[in-house]
């Protein structure tokens, strides 16, 4: 019942994850952060198998940080996405595969050009202008097909995201009362309402 949504705008990526942490019929926590900052301009969101989501996210986070320490330069979003896909693909046919669906959002630090990568637990990766993971896909992709344009401003993207939330509230049986919304742009990563 977890949901991730990502929207690219003019010079930013708007990423959101629901904050519900639940097992079976019980909601354990309502303030879960399903994101991990990979470096100043790249954010990874993960949902999936209990444990795998966090373990995989932190494993990637630490290796991206290690690259930066070793080489003195941060990785681009494309490189981060390729590395993450490779790790997931290698784990896929091993004894214990990560069952994690992810979104990676980032901007080019110099130009601010946004990039958003979608990857499912089978490690098929695709760069997309807007993307979702989870049951939300069935409801929200169509909404974004209708209203997304290239060069959205932050306010417009936030309004589009609100349309997505309203759609889920109205038509999705799962109760998702709160979302954590983050923006990645040239300045870095910050949380917004």
């Amino acid at each position, binding site marked *: 019942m977890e949901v991730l949504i990502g929207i690219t705008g003019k010079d930013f990526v708007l990423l959101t994850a629901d904050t519900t942490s639940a097992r079976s019929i019980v909601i354990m926590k309502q303030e879960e952060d399903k994101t991990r900052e990979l470096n100043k301009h790249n954010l990874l969101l993960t949902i999936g198998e209990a444990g795998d989501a966090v373990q995989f996210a932190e494993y990637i986070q630490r290796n991206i940080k290690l690259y930066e320490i070793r080489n003195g330069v941060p990785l681009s979003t494309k490189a981060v996405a390729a590395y993450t*896909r*490779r790790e997931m*693909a290698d784990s*896929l*046919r091993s004894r214990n595969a990560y069952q994690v669906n992810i979104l990676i959002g980032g901007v080019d630090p110099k130009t601010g050009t946004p990039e958003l990568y*979608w990857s*499912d637990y*089978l*490690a*098929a*990766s*695709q760069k*997309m202008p807007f*993307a979702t993971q989870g049951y939300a*896909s*069935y409801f929200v*992709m169509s909404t974004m097909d209708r209203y997304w344009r290239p060069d959205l401003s932050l306010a417009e993207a936030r309004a589009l995201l609100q349309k997505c939330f309203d759609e889920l509230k109205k038509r999705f049986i799962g109760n998702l009362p709160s979302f954590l919304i983050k923006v990645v742009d040239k300045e870095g990563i910050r949380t917004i309402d």
Partner: protein
Amino acid sequence: MSIMQYNGGCLVGMKGKNCVAIASDRRFGVQALGLSTNFQRMFSVSNRLYYGLAGLGTDVQTLSEKFRMSVNMYKLKEERDIAPTTFASLVSSTLYERRFGPYFSEPVIVGLEKDDTPFICATDLIGCINFAKDFVVTGTSSEQLYGMCEALWEPDLEPEDLFETISQAMLNAVDRDALSGWGAVVHVITPTQVITRTLKGRMD
């Protein structure tokens, strides 16, 4: 549902007069949900050799990365471009290495040999090569493509005519398959150049 039909997509390759063509659709989805309209299924080995991979998206990407590395190593060691027949054998053995835990992807290879003779072939997911004389098809709409190609193909088509033929075969075949379509790309390879065109097709 079969794992080969999880993401969808298809490819076709055709022989012409001193030219070859390869076409793919652009859909990437998860079963019934379509997600992307620009999934790359075709890759170039050189300006005379192209291949495409249909089937499970992750294996398409993993195999393209594996082949890129193998071909780069070949080029470094041999100091020349890889020949189409050699590349076909490379693909076949890479796939057969995983005989009992295969990659869920079926490739189509098209290219021009050293003396400009057209070459096409396809393999199944465990590397059995089909050296066709006319056309090769693969993917979720392979049966539709077989029908279209059989009806439209004739030997010794010039590059422009081959383009029209392969395009119509692709566009009409994918319109009868829910998991294929959402755009198409065609490469026509001649001894002098490669012409790449994006087709305008039904986006439903």
